């Protein structure tokens, strides 16, 4: 490892205290997936939306937690308060909201027209004389614990979850003022990955693979001689969560015609974003981002435990969600957010090119996670080996094991 990767904190060193191997079965065995589903995903806070997804009173959207089969409704009431419910009529169990999103002051089940307020209260039962035995107050929409932090909407399927702020810990304090809300527009890409979800988190937890796997894509943009294996800078452990800083190659400029055309299209906006960053404005200018003032900052890579990654770059941020539905299957959502939507056809073309480029880099990672699944499945007695530069992977996979084992989550969080 190069010296530049050992900057600042003891995070790297303490990461090496965790096991340097991981059994293959933790990625391939559906009994292990069942433990993760029941002991992790059913008991932890899960980021599922942004407040901008339901900006106005009475806006609603459906959401899913594919890992546990939850079909949910997220709705903003008339006072602006966000609530989450199971999308299930209390009468015969029908998923009563059928639109992906909309605006409504009540929800009516299409089967027998039972009516609910956006507060979940059961307001109407046609032919109510036939249902005199039903206590309305006990038969509203079933709520799901729902809280927001800096515009991210979290849900928790536990009956008495630990407070969200305890779960976020120092992460919540550090990133509380990052202005994600200034970047409300973008795209969401969804697909099914034929691999284990932890492999997707791990693929963003080390820079070691960049010079080989991403040699045609990301590598020329980030490679500098003094950091040949792209060690992360300033890794920080923030309770269950982590962050680290990556630089870019200041010499790099695209040389091919279409990439240059795209750069010329966005150049003024990009330079403005860089100016804002230098002036400590915008998403990348926040003090918690690039704490060490790395010149040529490129990415702040944040892991929001357990299944979200947030990558902050000078003019945008990415939010990736990985939802396992089996040991070898993961539903993914990757959102790319920007400050403003394209205004012209030329800008739309540039955005489509940038989105395709980002998708292809992530696809390179997905390809490896899928091939990894094939290899690990072939040799279930085998293991993965983590190197010294893969300390974030060691810690992440260790935290999952500890979370699954913990009966007292408050104590586990305090012990971190």
């Amino acid at each position, binding site marked *: 490892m190069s010296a530049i990767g050992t900057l600042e904190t003891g995070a790297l060193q303490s990461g090496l205290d965790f096991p340097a191997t991981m059994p293959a079965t933790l990625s391939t065995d559906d009994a292990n997936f069942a433990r993760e589903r029941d002991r992790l995903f059913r008991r932890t806070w899960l980021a599922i939306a942004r407040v*901008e*997804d339901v900006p106005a009173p009475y806006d609603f959207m459906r959401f899913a937690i594919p890992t546990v089969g939850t079909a949910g409704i997220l709705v903003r009431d008339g006072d602006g308060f966000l609530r989450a419910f199971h999308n299930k009529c209390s009468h015969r169990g029908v998923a009563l909201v059928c639109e992906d999103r909309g605006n409504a002051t009540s929800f009516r089940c299409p089967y027998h027209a039972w009516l609910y307020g956006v507060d979940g209260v059961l307001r109407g039962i046609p032919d109510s004389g036939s249902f005199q035995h039903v206590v309305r107050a006990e038969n509203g929409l079933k709520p799901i614990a729902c809280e927001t932090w800096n515009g991210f909407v979290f849900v928790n399927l536990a009956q008495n979850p630990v407070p969200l702020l305890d779960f976020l810990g120092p992460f919540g304090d550090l990133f509380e003022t990052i202005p994600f809300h200034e970047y*409300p*527009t*973008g*795209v*969401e*890409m*969804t*697909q099914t990955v*034929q691999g284990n979800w932890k492999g997707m988190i791990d693929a963003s937890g080390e820079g070691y693979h960049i010079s080989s796997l991403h040699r*045609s*894509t990301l590598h020329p943009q980030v490679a500098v001689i003094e950091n040949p294996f792209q060690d992360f800078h300033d890794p920080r452990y923030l309770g269950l969560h982590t962050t680290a800083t990556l630089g870019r190659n200041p010499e790099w400029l695209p040389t*091919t*015609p*279409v*990439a240059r*055309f795209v750069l010329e299209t966005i150049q003024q906006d990009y330079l403005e974003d860089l100016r804002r960053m230098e002036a400590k404005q915008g998403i990348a200018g926040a003090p918690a981002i690039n704490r060490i003032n790395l010149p040529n900052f490129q990415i702040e890579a944040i892991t929001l435990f357990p299944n979200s990654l947030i990558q902050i770059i000078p003019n945008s941020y990415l939010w990736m969600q990985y939802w396992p539905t089996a040991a070898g299957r993961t539903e993914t959502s990757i*959102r790319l*957010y920007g400050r403003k*939507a*394209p*205004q*012209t*056809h*030329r800008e*739309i*073309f540039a*955005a*489509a*090119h940038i*989105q*395709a*480029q980002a*998708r*292809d880099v992530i*696809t*390179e990672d*997905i*390809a*490896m996670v*899928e*091939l990894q699944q094939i290899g690990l499945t072939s040799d279930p007695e085998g293991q993965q080996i983590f190197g010294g530069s893969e300390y974030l992977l060691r810690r992440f996979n260790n935290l999952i094991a500890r979370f699954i084992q913990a009966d007292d989550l408050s104590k586990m969080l305090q012990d971190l």
Partner: protein
Amino acid sequence: MEVAAETKILPSGFADLLQFREWGELETQADRYLKRQTTALDALQEFYDAVTPRLPAIFALLDSRAPGSLAGPEERLFRMTLGLAEVAQAVETFHQSTVPHMRSPHRVDMRTIGPNGAIL
């Protein structure tokens, strides 16, 4: 008569791109990504070589229109050009149609989020 028939497919002045009209029929970026994967690299190169030098002329025309207002030949030309956003990844970066080592066809669905999201 032949010129008139051609102009119904693409705006006048772009008849040289008629052989790529299939790209103009694809409505989503997901479809364009799939077509890129299933088209041989030399065919992608032909498309790239024909459309890339026309970008200034294409946007000189299309940027005189408001986003969302395109129809008919102009909409087809724009969709074709959005195909170049995919084809350029194959030609300029990977020198192959697919992302290396990824199974194909690889489908990724896309939707816009937020106010005035890009029209894809």
